[in-house]
């Protein structure tokens, strides 16, 4: 038997145990994966789990591309766009914050991206798990996430390359993919429909990982590659089918990915300076008023705009992609901020979103009903 199976069984068992524990309290499992990694990581041979965690991240970015691709822009309501514009103010503010902390422009831009981007994957999962999909604030939040993901994919394409050659190669390759989807798309759609589910699953997996490798080989960001493959797959009309086929595989990989992030965080966060901790906290706080204001501009009521601001707290996949990029490009401080933000915001965000209705009720007691009741009495 291969020794990695032992590591896998141990990890899966721990994750299942954690998920089962929080399930009793009606809590989403994602933060538990992170915490499990943080607490048990030093005893787990996480290296042995590869390639599942890496695959999990790629499939996660693929899913984000699949669901949050540019074709969603057409369906975006004016309300969500207005909220998204306020949200985007986090970019210049984050950039400024980075410069003030003594980073050069490139490091500051990476930091700005990390502060700006919320995790579509985590937030969508929380919205579904906590049954908030029908609420008006969810519509605005998901619209904001569409804009965020596109902006950050562009940012990653610009910052992810090794030197100008890498950037150029990345942009050209992205354009080639989109042109390919546009030209051959209609023919491929018909062909794909005749393929069996198994074939589509294998083709999708090969396409995603292959694209990521190709981008990496050209010196561009592999995260953008995975995101782009999702966009291409969506334009081929495979959105529902791949979402259904990839779902379980991705969820398993993502659980392990978050476990590994938690496990590796202890090493990375050793030597964390007060500046790093301060930047992470400021980064989390920075977006709350912006999103609250954006929610108001999107026409949400006072309770709902508070919810919208809380919903956008969790950071995740793209922050970690940007963080590992920052580490590779020699900005360990930025990488620490990214990991710390994810580590703090996922459990905290889950908690705040879970109790958002209670918080709303405490802050804004339902006057109207009280008055009506008084009148009736």
């Amino acid at each position: 038997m291969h020794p990695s199976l032992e590591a896998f069984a141990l990890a899966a068992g721990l994750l299942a145990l954690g998920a089962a524990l929080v399930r009793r309290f009606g809590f989403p499992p994602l933060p538990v994966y992170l915490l499990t990694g943080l607490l048990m990581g030093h005893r787990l041979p996480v290296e042995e789990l590869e390639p599942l965690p890496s695959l999990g991240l790629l499939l996660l970015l693929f899913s984000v591309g699949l669901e949050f691709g540019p074709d969603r822009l057409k369906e975006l309501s004016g309300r969500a766009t207005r909220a998204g514009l306020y949200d985007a103010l986090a970019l210049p503010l984050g950039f400024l914050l980075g410069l003030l902390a003594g980073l050069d422009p490139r490091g500051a831009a990476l930091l700005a991206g990390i502060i700006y981007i919320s995790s579509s994957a985590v937030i969508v999962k929380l919205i579904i798990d906590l049954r908030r999909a029908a609420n008006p604030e969810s519509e605005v939040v998901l619209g904001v996430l569409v804009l965020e993901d596109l902006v950050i994919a562009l940012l990653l394409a610009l910052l992810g390359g090794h030197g100008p050659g890498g950037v150029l190669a990345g942009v050209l390759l992205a354009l080639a993919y989109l042109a390919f989807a546009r030209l051959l798309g209609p023919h491929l759609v018909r062909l794909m429909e005749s393929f069996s589910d198994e074939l589509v699953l294998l083709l999708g997996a090969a396409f995603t990982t292959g694209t990521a490798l190709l981008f990496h080989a050209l010196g561009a960001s592999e995260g953008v590659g995975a995101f782009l493959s999702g966009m291409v797959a969506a334009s081929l009309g495979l959105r529902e089918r791949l979402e259904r086929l990839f779902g379980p595989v991705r969820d398993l990989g993502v659980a392990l990915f978050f476990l590994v992030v938690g496990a590796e965080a202890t090493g990375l966060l050793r030597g964390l300076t007060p500046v790093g901790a301060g930047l992470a906290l400021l980064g989390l706080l920075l977006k709350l008023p912006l999103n609250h204001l954006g929610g108001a501009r999107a026409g949400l009521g006072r309770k709902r705009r508070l919810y919208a601001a809380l919903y956008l707290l969790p950071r995740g996949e793209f922050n970690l992609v940007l963080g590992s990029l920052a580490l590779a490009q020699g900005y360990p401080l930025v990488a620490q901020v990214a990991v710390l933000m994810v580590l703090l915001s996922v459990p905290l965000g889950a908690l705040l979103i879970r109790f958002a209705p209670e918080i709303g009720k405490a802050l804004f007691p339902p006057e109207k009903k009280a008055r009506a009741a008084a009148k009736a009495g």
Partner: protein
Amino acid sequence: MKVEEVALPGVGRKFTITMASGDRLVIVVHSSGKRELQYFEAGEDDEPRAALDLTDEEAREVGAILAGVLFHPEAVGDTQSKLGQKVIEWIKVLPGSRLAGKRVGEIPLPPGAHLLAVDRPGAPLVPNPGPEVVLELGDTLVVAGTREAVEALKRSL
């Protein structure tokens, strides 16, 4: 009545239906097939009065009842009440179904039940399918006839 539709990326689609009475019904169709329903009373925007989750199958049944396919109330009118004894059913060929791979000629249609069409995802509708048409997973059979016959057919599958 006013119906608004928006996409919820990563979740599905949301339909907001405002009735003439001012009451609102919010329906979220998840990509997973789950349906989430929320009912808001007129003038009440904040908290839903009621919420309901339906599976894909339950939602289809409820939808058929709402559309009056399964049961036509007498009040609807004369022509339709005569039709009340007849029903139209959509039967999907699910994994594990005995229908997959069978030819239309081999379906045990009880007397009084008729196969109107076969709907294959991504292909044009096959109206009045001949006996040589082979059924595939994911096909939807459109069957009409007396309620007893259609129910009997559904049971036999």
